[in-house]
């Protein structure tokens, strides 16, 4: 159990660090995919089987495909050569490091006495049946609202990414090919 936890934790942390440090966006996207897979595997260790499947299906299957399509649709050959860290990198790393230290101290020192009840690892917790029963009785309203959020996001994304009239004028019929210049013949 410890072996699998440390395996997924170390691979997950390594690929997360790779996501934020890669210059090539495509490499960062693939490392993010690996991070999602590691986190999904961690969910299985935590007896959340439906959530592990949902994580792989939605995050690795849909969100990453969305990212990859967005990266591929816009042609960015020259971005790789630009500077990739902005002006506040040093301060941000220091502050984030301090915040991380505080968070780790707070989480590891506070919950040391919380133990799993005996035999809890053998009983199923996050089965589809159990989550479905909660989702359709107590959490019916958030469930419907989540579907509305997805609809709104879909409409918004389609609207934002549409072709505008400005672009049509720039790349439409106004683009003319330059006339070939006649070369003067030498010695005719």
């Amino acid at each position, binding site marked *: 159990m410890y072996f699998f936890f440390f395996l997924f934790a170390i691979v997950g942390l390594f690929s997360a660090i790779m996501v*934020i440090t890669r210059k090539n966006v495509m490499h960062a996207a693939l490392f993010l995919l690996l991070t999602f897979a590691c986190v999904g595997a961690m969910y299985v260790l935590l007896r959340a089987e439906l959530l592990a499947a949902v994580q792989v299906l939605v995050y690795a299957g849909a969100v990453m495909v969305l990212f990859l399509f967005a990266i591929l649709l816009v042609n960015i050959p020259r971005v790789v050569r630009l500077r990739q860290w902005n002006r506040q990198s040093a301060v941000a790393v220091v502050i984030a*490091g301090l915040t991380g230290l505080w968070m780790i101290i707070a989480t590891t020192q506070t919950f040391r006495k919380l133990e799993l009840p005996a035999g809890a690892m053998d009983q199923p*917790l996050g089965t589809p049946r159990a989550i479905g029963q909660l989702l359709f009785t107590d959490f019916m309203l958030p469930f419907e609202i989540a579907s509305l959020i997805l609809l709104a996001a879909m409409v918004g994304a389609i609207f934002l990414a549409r072709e505008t009239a400005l672009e049509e004028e720039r790349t439409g019929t106004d683009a003319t090919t330059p006339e070939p210049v006649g070369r003067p013949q030498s010695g005719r």
Partner: protein
Amino acid sequence: MVPLPLYLAFGALLFIIGVVGVLTRRNAIIVLMSIELMLNAVNLTFISFSHYLQDLRGQVFTLFIIAVAASEAAVGLALVISLHRGKATFNLDEVNLLKW
């Protein structure tokens, strides 16, 4: 079994890596990826608490966070695409038209 603080520490580290990515990278797409990292860290924290308290509501909440994160990624990427169309850049330092 693996004690709870280890899971929480892993979630905290993932969150901090996401925060560093959001604060320091110039490329808009990588900032969006770091936001997804942060959301995953929060999901992991919810699910580990749900496991140790034997309460299923943490997992239901995580399901909703996944739905919201997916829709926010879609809208964010549409914004990045339209930004690229207008200015042909992903560099967030150059997107300063509203700066006073």
